């Protein structure tokens, strides 16, 4: 099922990319110095003179064999994405962990004392979390923590003139981007967890669990939380594309060398091979995200596991 889905996604992506106005040859070379014939020669060199479906098939075939080259840098696209992968992966994984753990914790706390002061404050904060524009939050955090307090670096992924991925060196650089991206995720996860927990807490089986003498902690964690996590887990699959979309702005503002920034640069310069490859790559991640959500579903709810009912 994954393969036909990916092919479908790649066809739609390619069609949309090509619907955008603009001619890569004009963005690549200096059109002021090229004659019409020379521009045409360049278009032929890039394969842009062929019918769209031929271009698509050729692009996809080269992508599969790893030979696809960027229009702009003439480097293999696979290598370009691989070089940008660590920064985005580090950021996305941190955000998912912080976002889900934080969101679930906040949601549970809210559900345990619904309409109490903590719930009201958390509701207000999560609403703000939804509403605040990413770039604004990013700049305000930068201003406070990097410029005024000088606690954290302004931008980048590691100190200049270093090239390793030592987590201790990279961590300070990830703090602000993580807060920016996780704020929205925490808010989303908390809203889902809260309502789902409230629902679970009013179910009969909880009364039964309490009646048979289980400790309150066990009632909440093993019975209520576990059951109310199902809709939250669904979020995992849905949040991956949101998260990767968010990296475009965050990686640009914090000058992180990730996929989001590569995507933006490629769109601006109409570097079709890179845009398509990133789309396919992100589609794979989203499908994997759904797969992980399905597996996690099974773990959370034994009834869903295959072979058991």
């Amino acid at each position, binding site marked *: 099922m994954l393969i036909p889905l990916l092919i479908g996604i790649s066809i739609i992506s390619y069609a949309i990319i090509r619907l955008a106005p*603009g*001619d890569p040859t004009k963005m690549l070379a200096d059109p002021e*110095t090229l004659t019409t014939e020379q521009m045409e020669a360049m278009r032929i060199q890039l394969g842009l003179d062929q019918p769209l479906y031929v271009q698509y098939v050729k692009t996809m075939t080269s992508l599969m064999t790893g030979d696809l080259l960027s229009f702009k840098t003439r480097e293999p696209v696979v290598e370009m994405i691989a070089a940008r992968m660590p920064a985005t992966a580090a950021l996305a994984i941190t955000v998912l962990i912080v976002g889900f753990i934080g969101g679930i914790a906040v949601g549970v706390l809210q559900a345990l004392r619904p309409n109490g002061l903590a719930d009201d404050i958390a509701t207000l904060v999560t609403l703000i979390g939804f509403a605040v524009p990413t770039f604004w939050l990013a700049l305000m955090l930068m201003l406070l923590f990097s410029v005024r307090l000088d606690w954290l*670096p302004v931008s980048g992924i590691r100190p200049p003139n270093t090239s390793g991925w030592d987590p201790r060196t990279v961590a300070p650089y990830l703090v602000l981007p993580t807060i920016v991206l996780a704020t929205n995720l925490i808010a989303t996860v908390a809203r889902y967890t809260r309502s789902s927990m409230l629902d679970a807490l009013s179910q009969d089986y909880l009364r039964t669990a309490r009646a048979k003498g289980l400790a309150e902690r066990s009632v909440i964690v093993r019975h209520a939380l576990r059951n109310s996590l199902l809709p939250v887990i669904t979020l995992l699959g849905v949040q991956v594309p949101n998260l990767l979309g968010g990296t475009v702005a965050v990686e640009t503002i914090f000058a992180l060398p*990730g996929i989001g920034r590569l995507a933006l*640069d490629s769109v*601006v310069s109409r570097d079709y091979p890179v845009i398509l490859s990133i789309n396919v790559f992100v589609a794979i991640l989203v499908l994997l995200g759904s797969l992980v959500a399905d597996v996690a579903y099974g773990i959370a709810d034994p009834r869903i596991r295959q072979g058991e009912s």
Partner: protein
Amino acid sequence: MSIPNPLISRRRFTQGVAGSALAASFAGVTLPIADVVTAQDGSTQVIIGAWSEPDSLLSGAPHSGAAYQQIQRIIANGLVRLGYPSFDVEPDLAESWDVSEDSTVYTFHLRDGVTWQDGEPFTVEDVKFTLDVVTSPDWPGALDSYWSQVVGATEHKAGEATELTGARIIDDSTIEVTLLQPDTLFLASAVSRQRILPKHLIDGTTIADIQKSDFARVPTYTGAFQVTEWLPGESITLVANPNYWEGKPGIDTIISRFIPDAATSIAELSTGGLDIGTVQPDQLAQFSSDSTFTVQELPGLRIAYIQFDLTKELFTDPRIRKAISHAIDRQTVIDTLYLGYGEPGRSFIPTISWVYNPDAPTYPYDPDQAAALLEEAGWTLGDDGIRVNADGQRLAFELIAPTSSRTDGLAIQPFLQAIGIEVTLVEQGAGQTTGPLEVGQYDASISQWNNYIIDPRADLQRTFQNPRPTDSTGYANPDVDALFLEARAALDRDTEQGLWFELQDLVETDAPLVYLWRQQDLLVVGNRLTVPEVSSLSELYARIPEWQINS
């Protein structure tokens, strides 16, 4: 002519979103400067910023990005280079050159004792190799009009010859290049722009492979600094070349960081994460009042102007264009929008150039004159304050403004309204930009052009000579075209200058463009770093080897 200036357009794009908010928040903040200039081993290190990453560091490959423009002069050398401030050609790897009496044969005498950054000697073979490579059929992009002046270049590019026959090695330190006809632009526009490539490292490799190879990213040239590392999306590291023929540079390591967002650059600059950078006028006060920074105000090399689709009937009458020019109070706009850091635009080329004709016609602010010109052209004021002609056509048009020029557009609008011209501003974001506008696609647009590393004569040519590869304006004047050919074929500089002056007289009488202003470049330098007094940003980066860390 309408190519969005790569050095500013996207920087402003993100700045438009975010910059003003942050800039406002910085006001009055005094900040510590992080100790980034001295690396742990005691060597000196300076960090500069560039908004975009180069596509490649292979000299001559098309479209090499803003970061490349900053470092290209210090990593590699050509036979000659453009000097500052007036863009005169000066020796580089060629210690001197002779030109034959008929101005068609250039004999370059190479500098002795130059080595590549890997220690190999630089030889005349490298020069011949480079000239052969850049005119070969596989070299990316087209043969530009300046190289095509060399004997055999067109044939070599077409695959009809195995080498560039017009480039001939005379002896170990002399090479001769023969042109089809005299071309005063040959040195400045062809030779100065191509760095010499190392034959011993890339001979025998196909050009497609060179582009993919490490050489295109971490090249070895003869320059003052060697590229040692390129982290994609992050930075390029340059290390001083101890054997550089002009002497070892003052700083051991230069790191060029790619920071796409202007607000982030300012934050880095304020905290010492960048040692040097440019700021917008409204951000300058924060730095000039802080003793940890020094500020230099440099004449801008960037001209903002209005261009028109001259094939549209409305704009065929030069009186309309002249009236528009007379209507705009440039100084007031500069004083309010750019806080005085700028000067009214007088010409497409910088006024410091020897080619600039100070006596060419200009159309400064004079609303009465503007109104008179429109009356004379048959446009009378209508009831709603907008002029109409005898056919009842309203004097109204759409003005396209890229996001980076939106405020310019807003500033111009009321001045034109005041003389009875209705302007509808159409903003165009960075993602919507699809290359230069072409005739038939628009009415008028605000554009910017950066006279950054190109000889001003080439700027004139690509803007006003007909035919042009991409025609944004439809401007054509056969007398101007004839003068271009004459000026390029001139045998001495006085004659050539006279011809360029005459050419500008003709162009400015036609007034195809309305020049707006040149915004100054405002340079902020952390005071641990000393940079020479320079005439432009372009010169600043060319003279990186002279930068010093204060002890």
